[in-house]
Each structure stands twice: as structure tokens, then as C-alpha cells.
């Protein structure tokens, strides 16, 4: 159930799964691990936070098989380029990898990116050798700038983080796909399986989500649903759908009808 040789390539690394998932908001680590399994994801996002000195020292890394999953540390919670840069440097030190999901947020209510600060941070981080995957708006001009700066992909939002509204503006996503050559990964807004399929049918190279899975009544089942949906959407995109028409076309032959 896959297309031979159809790989997602980011910064020269190949991935078979086009679904990236977050590790936040699960009831417990067991549920999280089961959901990661069901999702088939190879890239998982993590946050960088202070070690809590008063609580048990249990670390997320005790649960995650790093042979199986590529960690993508994010800069969630950063509202300035400086904070995001600092977080990326710490993430690299902690994770021994250059991959970062760069977020610079504009406000707490929308969690929309502050693209002016995002561009600042991206310019510096790319120079420092990071593989930058920026979370941004569905703004083709910003995406083109991020590509020109040297980001390894662009990750426009479909809708606000955790909103479950799906892709609010497929037109912009299509324009972004026409505009940049790096992978386009829809990040944020996916609420259900069809949202993920739609992203892939538009031609996106991948989808990233967290709340859509972790917040579902049954996260493991939803993880599997998203796994199937991303593959369904990708296959449909490659298969070449029928054109839309206002009127009908019969699927049974006219010839040989009884008289």
C-alpha cells in the first residue's frame, strides 16, 4: 500500500511517511507511543523545556526509539527571533541534530506566526547551519523569502493551531505550491482525516499535526485514520482525479438497452 520510490525528501534525507506528528497533549506516554505507531510517522516534533528539578527525572527520550523516529524540536512559545534562536541552539545541543521546527508566534490567542521576526530568525539560523523547517502563514511571499533564505521546507498553516478548521484557504496553498521548490508541509489546523487528504490532494508534500490526533476521543484510532488519509490523498494526487463538471456522465453503457 504505497507508491514505490515516492519519498518525501527534506534536506537530502528521505522519508517514506508524509505525516509528521507532535508528541504533546497525550493523556500519558503509553497512549502517545501507541499513537505514534499507528500514525506511521517518521518525524515527530518535541518541545524544549526546563528540566523540572522537583519532579521525577523521567525524560521523553526514555520512551522514544530514536532509531525509528527523527526528532524535530520546535520553538513553540517563542515570541521573538532571539528566543527562537536561543531555543534552537539548545535543541541542537540536546538532540545532536540540526533539524528545527522554527516557530515565532505573534500572539497567544491565534498563535499565528510573526513572519517579520520569523524571517529574521531564519536568516540567522540558516547561516548557523540549522536545517530550518519554518511554521508560517499561507503567504506565498513569505514562503518564497523563506526558500530564498535557505529553509529546507516551508510549513504554512492550514488554520490556527488546534482549531481543527482544516485548510481555510486552499487557493493560497496552491499558489505556494506553484511558487516554491522546497517541500510544502501543511502545519496546523487539521481536524479530521479528510482535512489531511485535501492537503495532499492539493499537492502538498506532507502534513504536520498534533492536536487533531492527541485531542481526539480515541487518539490511537485517529492516528491511524490520519495515516491512511495522508496516503489516500497522496495516491489520489498522483492518480489524477477526474475533472469536475456541473452535469452528469453515465457510468453504464447506453448500448444494449432493452426496448
Amino acid at each position: 500500500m504505497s507508491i514505490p520510490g515516492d519519498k518525501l525528501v527534506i534536506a537530502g534525507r528521505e522519508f517514506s511517511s508524509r505525516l509528521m506528528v507532535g508528541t504533546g497533549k497525550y493523556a500519558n506516554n503509553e497512549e502517545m507511543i501507541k499513537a505514534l505507531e499507528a500514525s506511521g510517522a517518521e518525524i515527530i516534533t518535541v518541545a524544549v523545556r526546563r528540566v523540572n528539578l522537583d519532579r521525577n527525572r523521567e525524560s521523553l527520550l526514555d520512551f522514544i526509539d530514536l532509531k525509528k523516529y527523527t526528532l524535530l524540536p520546535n520553538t513553540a512559545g517563542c515570541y521573538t527571533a532571539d528566543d527562537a534562536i536561543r531555543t534552537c541552539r539548545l535543541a541542537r545541543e540536546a538532540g545532536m541534530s540540526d533539524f528545527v521546527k522554527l516557530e515565532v508566534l505573534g500572539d497567544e490567542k491565534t498563535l499565528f506566526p510573526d513572519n517579520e521576526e520569523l524571517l529574521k530568525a531564519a536568516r540567522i539560523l540558516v547561516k548557523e547551519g540549522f536545517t530550518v523547517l519554518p511554521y508560517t502563514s499561507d503567504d506565498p511571499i513569505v514562503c518564497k523569502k523563506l526558500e530564498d533564505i535557505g529553509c529546507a521546507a516551508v510549513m504554512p498553516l492550514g488554520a490556527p493551531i488546534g482549531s481543527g478548521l482544516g485548510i481555510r484557504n486552499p487557493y493560497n496553498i496552491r499558489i505556494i505550491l506553484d511558487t516554491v521548490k522546497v517541500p510544502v508541509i501543511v502545519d496546523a489546523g487539521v481536524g479530521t482525516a479528510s482535512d489531511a487528504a485535501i492537503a495532499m490532494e492539493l499537492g502538498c508534500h506532507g502534513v504536520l499535526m498534533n492536536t487533531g490526533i492527541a485531542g481526539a476521543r480515541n487518539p490511537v484510532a485517529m492516528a491511524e485514520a490520519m495515516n491512511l488519509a495522508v496516503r489516500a490523498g497522496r495516491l489520489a494526487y498522483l492518480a489524477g482525479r477526474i475533472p469536475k463538471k456541473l452535469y452528469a456522465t453515465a457510468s453504464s453503457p447506453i448500448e444494449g438497452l432493452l426496448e
Partner: protein
Amino acid sequence: MQVIINGEFREIDPQNINNLLEDLDIDPRKVAVELNSEILPKAVFETTFLGERDRLEIVHFVGGG
């Protein structure tokens, strides 16, 4: 002597980073350390000794989206 770790004042004996992490029961391979706003490569954990009033940030990965 007194240092500030993750925003909290702590009374500790003079020691290097590795010892500190050991005392705190933290696996050095799973964290990153910032000393007085400078990131500290793991390579120098052994040779870096804490001084009075040093500010340390010890971070690791947690679940996030």
C-alpha cells in the same frame, strides 16, 4: 555556594557540571545546559566548574506539537 538553576536559587558545593547533573540525577546525554546565557557543549561539562552566582539553564525535550 549559591547558584541559580532554572530560575531557582540553590545551595551547592563547588563542582563541575557533570557532578552537578549527577547530584540532580539528570542524564547529561538527554539535556542541554546554558551557563550564564552561553550554551555549554557537552564536551566541556567535565572541565567546567561552577562559581558563585552562576546562572544555569538545564533543558530537555518534552512532548510538544
